[in-house]
């Protein structure tokens, strides 16, 4: 590395890469070389910036100019205009959804200005493949401080003081968890990182692993020191090839630099780290199933107790934390536990990363202090609902979580407040739902997922979720029976109490919370055979209002199954036997003559 006057950062997260950011990077490098700028400007590939909706993203430093939706031909223009002539390419600047004003600078974007990015501080700012860049951001300083200035007991105490709680969803005090493992006798112990992120719509762990892998490695080394472990595993699903690639590269670099391995920094502390690829079973995110999988057994949960802190991986005391939890450790040790505890709300300290998806303008990765309201996340940071439609609910916590409605918009986010409202913090998936989403159908979608992922070891989960799913499918097809709602509640409650592991214990949550807040939608399906949101295909009919139709034939062309007939300038007609209710005609009709009910 040499000193350059300008650094051009190109996002290399999975979202931007699939949008073609590698081509953009190549074009920038070629353009810079062709214009003789390669001695003064460098191009760096970074991890995810979080604003995936606007990708591929390019940021030009030192000014911090933020370019969005950059295509290779735009990259050429950035080189010839901005880099060569100092002129900002206005048309590529981020434009806020609500106003059309262009926002030139990274830190002025409303999407970022409301966030507090502690865990994500390096994501999108450094080259994740460069150990030097991590070190420039105080990397491995915390490990050095801990190894030379603190006893393992002090580290555990600090973790307790910080108030950090499990970010994978459980919300158990990390310091307490570490203490159990530290006190557990035995010469051999393990630390494990749970990177088996499988919730639909969740991608915070992936972004962290891809954008700042050394932070997780450093956190695990600190944890290993505190608990007396000398070996660690990162269990990462094989569907995250980029994360695995960057992890392996970072572990290799850290070993070469003597930051992993034997006698780290000359202190006599030893720690080796392995990556274990999972085969993509959702249940392997459950800690005991995950450990079975590392051991080469079938990924099924074991009954607890004994807890992993007593008998974990290969029956040795083990501690398992989620990616986001580990990513916070080094910063807590570097800045001190009080610094971390300063952020937050009541018993939930620090910040939380959410994957914001669904019917919201700015989908992406968002980090806010605990205590931020859902309204701030969805409307201020998320930029509101797409197309100005009406907000209906958020599904928080993925398939294990629940939905919250408009009345909860001003609820400060914390482990306790979400649980009280029937949802859970979960790993941090936040799916925004608008008026056109059917809540019964959404509950069916999540239950279908957990049902498919149920490992089958215990009966309540294996059989119970199947029965619940059968009922939900029946309701969405218009064949619901009066007793279905009671049966769903009965089954759901039983499955929650009787299942062996977290998967079954939380699987009914989406059904139970939608029943709690949107019971009228279930009743409309069952009693009136009507889907109020107009989403369940079996319950809607699409018709053309002959009084409004002018016979423009647009719908005929849009219909994929040729179900619409009629002559030009005459009202058209939909053949209900052929119609697949896709709604394509509704979208294209310029006269709003087509009704979906």
């Amino acid at each position, binding site marked *: *590395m040499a000193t350059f006057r300008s650094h051009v950062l190109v996002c290399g997260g999975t979202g931007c890469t699939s949008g073609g950011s590698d081509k953009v990077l190549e074009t920038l490098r070629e353009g810079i070389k062709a214009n003789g700028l390669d001695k003064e400007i460098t191009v760096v590939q970074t991890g995810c910036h979080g604003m995936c909706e606007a990708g591929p993203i390019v940021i030009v430093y030192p000014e911090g100019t933020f370019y969005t939706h950059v295509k290779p031909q735009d990259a050429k223009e950035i080189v010839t205009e901005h880099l060569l002539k100092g002129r900002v390419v206005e048309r590529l600047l981020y434009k806020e959804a609500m106003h059309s004003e262009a926002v030139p600078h990274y830190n002025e974007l409303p999407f970022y200005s409301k966030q507090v990015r502690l865990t994500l501080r390096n994501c999108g700012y450094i080259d994740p493949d460069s150990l030097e860049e991590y070190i420039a951001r105080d990397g491995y*300083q915390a490990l050095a401080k801990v190894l030379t200035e603190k006893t393992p007991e002090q580290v555990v105490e600090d973790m307790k003081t910080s108030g950090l709680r499990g970010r994978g969803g459980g919300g158990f005090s990390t310091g307490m968890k570490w203490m159990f493992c530290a006190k557990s006798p035995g010469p051999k112990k393990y630390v494990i990182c749970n990177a088996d992120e499988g919730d639909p719509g969740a991608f915070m762990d992936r972004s962290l692993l891809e954008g700042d892998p050394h932070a997780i490695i450093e956190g695990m080394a600190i944890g290993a020191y505190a608990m007396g472990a000398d070996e660690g595993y990162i269990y990462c699903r094989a569907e995250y090839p980029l994360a695995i690639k960057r992890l392996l590269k970072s572990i290799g670099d850290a070993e070469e*630099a003597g930051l992993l391995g034997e006698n780290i920094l000359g202190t006599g502390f030893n720690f080796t780290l392995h990556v274990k690829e999972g085969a993509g079973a959702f249940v392997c995110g459950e800690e005991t199933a995950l450990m079975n999988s590392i051991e080469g057994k079938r990924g099924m949960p074991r009954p607890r107790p004994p807890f992993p802190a007593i008998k974990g991986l290969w029956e040795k005391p083990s501690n398992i934390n989620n990616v986001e939890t580990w990513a916070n450790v080094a910063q807590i040790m570097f800045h001190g536990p009080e610094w971390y505890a300063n952020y937050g709300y009541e018993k939930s300290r620090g910040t939380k990363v959410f994957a914001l998806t669904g019917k919201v303008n700015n989908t992406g990765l968002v980090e806010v202090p605990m205590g931020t309201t859902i309204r701030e996340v969805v409307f201020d940071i998320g930029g509101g609902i797409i197309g100005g439609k009406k907000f209906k609910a958020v599904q928080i916590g993925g398939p294990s979580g629940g939905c919250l409605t408009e009345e909860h918009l001003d609820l400060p986010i914390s482990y306790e407040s979400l649980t009280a409202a029937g949802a859970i913090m979960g790993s941090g998936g936040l799916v925004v739902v608008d008026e056109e989403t059917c809540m019964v159908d959404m509950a069916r979608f999540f239950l279908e997922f957990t049902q498919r992922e149920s490992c089958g070891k215990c009966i309540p989960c294996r059989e119970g979720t199947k029965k619940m799913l059968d009922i939900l499918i029946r309701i969405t097809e218009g064949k619901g029976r009066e007793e279905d709602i009671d049966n769903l509640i009965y089954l759901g409650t039983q499955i929650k109490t009787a299942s062996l592991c977290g998967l079954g214990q939380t699987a009914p949550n989406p059904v139970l919370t939608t029943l709690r807040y949107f019971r009228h939608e279930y009743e409309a399906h069952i009693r009136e055979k009507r889907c109020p949101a107009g989403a369940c295909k079996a319950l809607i009919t699409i018709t053309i209002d002959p009084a409004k139709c002018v016979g423009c034939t647009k719908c005929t062309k849009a219909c994929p199954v040729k179900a619409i007939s009629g002559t030009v300038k005459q009202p058209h007609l939909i053949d209900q036997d052929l119609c697949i209710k896709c709604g394509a005609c509704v979208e294209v009709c310029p006269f709003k003559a087509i009704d979906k009910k």
Partner: protein
Amino acid sequence: MPKINNLEELKKLREKSITETAARKEGKFRVIIGLGTCGIAAGGRKIMEAAMEEISKRGLKDVSVETTGCIGMCQNEPLMDIVRPGEPRVTYGNLKPEDVPRIIADHLVNGNVVEEKVIGRPE
């Protein structure tokens, strides 16, 4: 990468890495070169190279070298602005590469404006 054996070596590597990534935030001190078509034609790039060379020769920290487009004073190009924290931005014009080391030394480092080369103080 060479092995980091102790805290001292980690500290050194950190300082080196910080310098190398310093361009990722706006420095407290700024040197801004006019590189519109007019600036390029008048030799602005040579001015920029001279500025970068002087900054690295002196090992100056917290200085960002930025570019800007045409500001409408094409007849005075090449232009170079110096911004020191808390002080007004000063624009120098009609520069030759050999003027640059003096402006960097007198103004950027020591805070004495090189009056004979100043063509404007926009704010």
